[in-house]
């Protein structure tokens, strides 16, 4: 399992954050390389020729692409500590289902919240909150989605928390007012060093978003 680990990433990427959290949970030393997405490095294009996207995890010179695939890879290689997926197949299926739900819903709906206005934005906000409420239901009374410790779904979802402030400012709403249990969960996650050091400051993300809006000509 030893061998050089490199992560090609972009600091505000929720997907990159997932891999950072997984590496931190397993206490794996790695080299972090910041990519300029408007000027992608030769290494990135060589390691992910198909999608040309970050994050890319490079282990012993071999690339693994797509954040949830990277998290599973990390869990399988460094299987002697901090398991991210449970051992029971049905519980694993449940975790994969909800991580996939985060992928299908949260990113796109969140993007709609900051990219649109008026009716479209109101619909996006409503669907975004509905999706978060479904996740709250899955969390139930557990400390984390993974139970007593961070699990696959926690790692999949917590990066979006760093974008909540930006979504709230753009959409003029309070996520905590609608989903207090989820925010309480997020704050518990932020108490963990692996999460706190992997997520950027919410204000910084908001500033970044404002810059993106200017570039894309969105009001």
């Amino acid at each position: 399992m030893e061998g050089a680990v490199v992560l090609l990433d972009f600091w505000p990427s929720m997907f990159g954050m997932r891999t950072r959290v997984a590496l931190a949970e397993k206490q794996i030393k790695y080299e972090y390389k910041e990519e300029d997405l408007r000027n992608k490095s030769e290494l990135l294009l060589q390691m992910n020729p198909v999608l040309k996207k970050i994050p890319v995890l490079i282990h012993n010179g071999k690339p693994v692409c797509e954040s949830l695939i990277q998290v599973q890879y990390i869990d399988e290689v460094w299987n002697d500590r901090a398991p991210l997926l449970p051992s029971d197949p049905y519980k694993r299926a449940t975790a994969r289902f909800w991580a996939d739900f985060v992928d299908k819903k949260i990113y796109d709906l969140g993007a709609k919240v900051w990219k649109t206005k008026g009716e479209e934005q109101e619909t996006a906000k409503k669907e975004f909150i509905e999706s978060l409420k479904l996740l709250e239901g899955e969390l139930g009374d557990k400390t984390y989605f993974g139970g007593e410790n961070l699990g696959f779904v926690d790692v999949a979802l917590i990066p979006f928390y760093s974008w909540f402030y930006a979504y709230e400012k753009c959409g003029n709403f309070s996520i905590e007012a609608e989903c207090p249990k989820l925010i309480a969960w997020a704050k518990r996650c932020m108490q963990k060093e692996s999460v706190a050091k992997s997520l950027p400051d919410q204000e910084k993300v908001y500033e970044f978003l404002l810059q993106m809006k200017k570039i894309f000509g969105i009001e």
Partner: protein
Amino acid sequence: MYITPVKQEDLANNMAEEVKLFKTWSTPFGLRVVWALKLKGIEYESIDEDLSNKSALLLQYNPVYKKVPVLVHNGKPVSESLVILEYIDETWNQNPLLPEDPFERARQRFWAKFNEEKLLPTIMAIFTKEGKDREEAMAAWVENLKFVEEELKGKKFFGSEKIGLADLVFGWMANLIGIFEEVTGLKIVDERYPLLLAWMQEFYEHPVIKDTWPPHDKMIIKWQALYENYHPAK
């Protein structure tokens, strides 16, 4: 021989299990699950849904998406075909769909995701759109196929030596490409992709797969009707 024989004790275990699969007669997503169950020799009950009139059971088993396929194992439901495939592989260990090596597992998962998120939407765009939109979709499709062809170099299947998870996810291409070409009159996978064409043939005729395809005539009627919806005669 592509299949490892199922052991007697595994058969005995299977008889104590209750496995149900909710699908439709034509869904390619449900078919993936059928293949996984057949490859592992698992007995199951098949329930074909009418999607215009979904059963109460289906809605109870998949309240989040209300879609097929749903696998119900001893009363516990699993939804989303890729999640179901991994569940099957982890629950029944014979004839594995994924190898032990984490890098190889990541490789197959990557291509499964690529198929879901790039190939499927692009083929649907080619099927449903017209004019410039269709041309753009075709261009994207050609780009994607180049990568797929490259990935098949030196391999018999996406799973390498034998059928793996990625092959089951790519499997829809082995019959639907032909059907789409018949219905649209377009050439969708041409001679520029000999490895892919060879894989499609191999998969289509595989002893475990070949009897599972939905009836060709019924499929033509279905897809012809859908095509006419999107391209009404002027």
